[in-house]
């Protein structure tokens, strides 16, 4: 059976069921449901023992909820990226196993025993820490989103990838456990650095790319974390095991994985990742640098191209995610008509700083075509812009920091498509 055939069959079935329910509100069944009237195997036999899966994976029926990559995007899969299946996730916490990966020299394998963290440069005493040393500093726990600056970057010039996993899936949101970078810097001592206002830290990883980035001291001393756990367990290899840097609200490229060195400096290094990449070229050919903060952004995750409406008319949950690197999300509005009219969505919880917020619009679908959009606002008063507004300011040659309002065209069958609107 081809995908196409099975999809059609699936949709037909879904729509038939939808018609039954949607037409008459609470429906009456014509015949008893054998799933209820007949004893099912699972209600009679036995399930797996507790030794079957010492570390559990999702049940096989969820095997499609996985990271996926776009082959044509990069020269190979080593220096590449994949995408979080946000169309199929709910709540806000991203399971590590399907949280997007971005490597510049591949995901390296390192043991805790082989891990070393050096702090040098303008410090009172250059120090080396082992992994065990890090676990002896006071710990903090915080939930933060990590968004690649290039998330939605392929959509600058037009609607291109037909799935929210691909348009918005370079993001994850986890609870991190670690030591504040401030604590580590103060252990080495900053008297030598003198006036801290114009100082920087240069951070680099242990992999071949090293992915070095310069971070201004004010951010380093504010909320950065040297993290060794995510969502309660050790970081995954692909996310920097055993230790990564967390730079809340700032572009994911700065969240250096396998962090091995922190150098206090009197200026930025101007490394490859902060000059040739992760800079934003404007229409006149000049480029913005140090565009660290991720601006407020939101997207409807369902319905969306990979998560169509299969139940027909009637009650519909429109579900989505919002986040901002400049504080907390305060409000999200949803439009069903491409931005003519807006309704304020319900936030599942109050927005938290530098963390994802889930929003819902509990609505009734009349079976008509919709042009679904969401628009986030954050505590600074900033309103997520349209793609036209961004292009007007930045031109068409930008790649990073595309936080435009996304549009899904949902047709009368419930299928959704990535489109742009006037």
């Amino acid at each position: 059976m081809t995908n196409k055939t099975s999809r059609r069959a699936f949709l037909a079935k879904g729509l038939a069921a939808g018609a039954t329910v949607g037409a008459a509100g609470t429906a009456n069944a014509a015949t008893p449901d054998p799933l209820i009237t007949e004893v099912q195997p699972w209600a009679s036999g036995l399930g797996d023992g507790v030794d079957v899966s010492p570390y559990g994976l999702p049940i096989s029926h969820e095997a499609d909820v996985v990271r996926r990559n776009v082959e044509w995007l990069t020269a190979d899969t080593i220096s590449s990226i994949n995408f979080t299946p946000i169309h199929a996730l709910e709540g806000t916490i991203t399971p590590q196993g399907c949280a997007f990966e971005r490597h510049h020299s591949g995901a390296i394998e390192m043991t805790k025993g082989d891990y070393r963290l050096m702090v040098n440069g303008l410090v009172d005493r250059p120090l080396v820490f082992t992994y065990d040393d890090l676990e002896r500093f006071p710990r903090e726990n915080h939930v933060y989103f990590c968004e690649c600056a290039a998330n939605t970057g392929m959509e600058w010039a037009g609607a291109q990838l037909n799935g929210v996993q691909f348009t918005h899936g370079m993001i994850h949101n986890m609870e991190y456990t670690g030591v504040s970078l401030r604590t580590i810097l103060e252990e080495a001592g900053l008297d030598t650095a003198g006036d801290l206002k114009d100082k920087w830290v240069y951070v680099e990883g242990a992999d071949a790319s090293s992915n070095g980035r310069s971070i201004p001291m004010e951010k380093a001393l504010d909320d950065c974390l040297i993290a060794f756990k995510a969502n309660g367990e050790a970081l995954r290899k692909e996310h920097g095991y055993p230790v990564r840097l967390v730079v809340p609200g700032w572009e994911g490229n700065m969240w250096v994985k396998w962090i091995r060195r922190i150098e206090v400096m009197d200026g930025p290094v101007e490394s490859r990742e902060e000059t040739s990449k992760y800079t934003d070229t404007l229409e006149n050919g000049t480029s913005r640098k140090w565009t660290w903060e991720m601006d407020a952004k939101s997207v409807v995750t369902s319905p969306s191209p990979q998560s169509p409406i299969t139940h027909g008319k009637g009650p519909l949950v429109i579900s989505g995610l919002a986040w901002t690197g400049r504080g907390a999300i305060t409000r999200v509005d949803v439009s069903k008509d491409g931005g003519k009219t807006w309704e304020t969505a319900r936030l599942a919880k109050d927005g938290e700083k530098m963390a994802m917020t889930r929003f819902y619009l509990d609505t009734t679908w009349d079976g008509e075509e919709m042009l679904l959009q969401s628009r986030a606002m954050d505590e600074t008063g900033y309103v997520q812009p349209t793609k036209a507004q961004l292009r007007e300011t930045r031109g068409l040659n930008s790649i990073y920091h595309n936080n435009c309002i996304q549009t899904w065209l949902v047709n009368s069958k419930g299928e959704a498509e990535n489109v742009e609107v006037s």
Partner: protein
Amino acid sequence: MLKFPKLALGLVLTMAATPTFADKLGLGRVALPEEIAAWDIDVRPDGTGLPVGSGDVLVGEEVFADKCASCHGDFAEGVDNWPKLAGGADTLDHEDPLKTVGSYWPYLSTTWDYVNRSMPFGDAQSLTPDEVYAIVAYIIYSNDLVDEDFVLSNETFADFELPNKDGFIIDDRLETEHSKWVGEPCMENCKAEVKVTMRAMVLDVTPEDTSDNAAAVEPATAEPAKVEEAAVVEVVEPAVAALDEELAAKGAKVFKKCKACHKVGDKAKKRFWPNVERCVRSTSWSS
């Protein structure tokens, strides 16, 4: 130098109110000079951090051909989707600018630093300082920025400036964007009409889900994805009478140098790059 004076002020106040260095735990140990020398290899725009050494264009061409050209091309023009290091002069204000060391990178130190610490791809930190100087000299030669008798050394490094040195501004989004995009947004009658102006399905570059459960989660696409035959090159196995296993083992060892760019085996077909011109924006990400 700080972007946000208000934040800087806040920082100073916070620092003053905190007993900054009173709570040292005495963890870790002092880093030895040899250890710092081994890891602290970053090079700054003014050349700080460069080791003593030199290299010229002609030597650079040889080293580049041997160690870099399989991905970056003999003339630094880039192979397939691998980064182009040369060309693109004066294209930054054009549609789809070509960003290379010559056209875009502001500082030569960045090239030296990156080649030295991360290249060749798959064999990083194997180059001598002289080889790095030579490679960097060849890259700027390939960008028509120096003549073939050019020699780059730690002593002459600071004299060289890349063309786009002044092509960058510090992030100005707060002034140019945030000042405009604030306040109570429109809720009703925000547009007279709405038209669909572009559709992703027309472009059809979204990867197909080939997993068994794909059928249950994906909506019907308008048309099945085009098979990318034009971009796929079949690897035809030559008929071999008998495999010389010893020779094959040697080959496998030598091939380690090639595998960063070249793949063999069942999945090899997928490693050939489809025609990126099909896409609205190829957004090169390589390495």
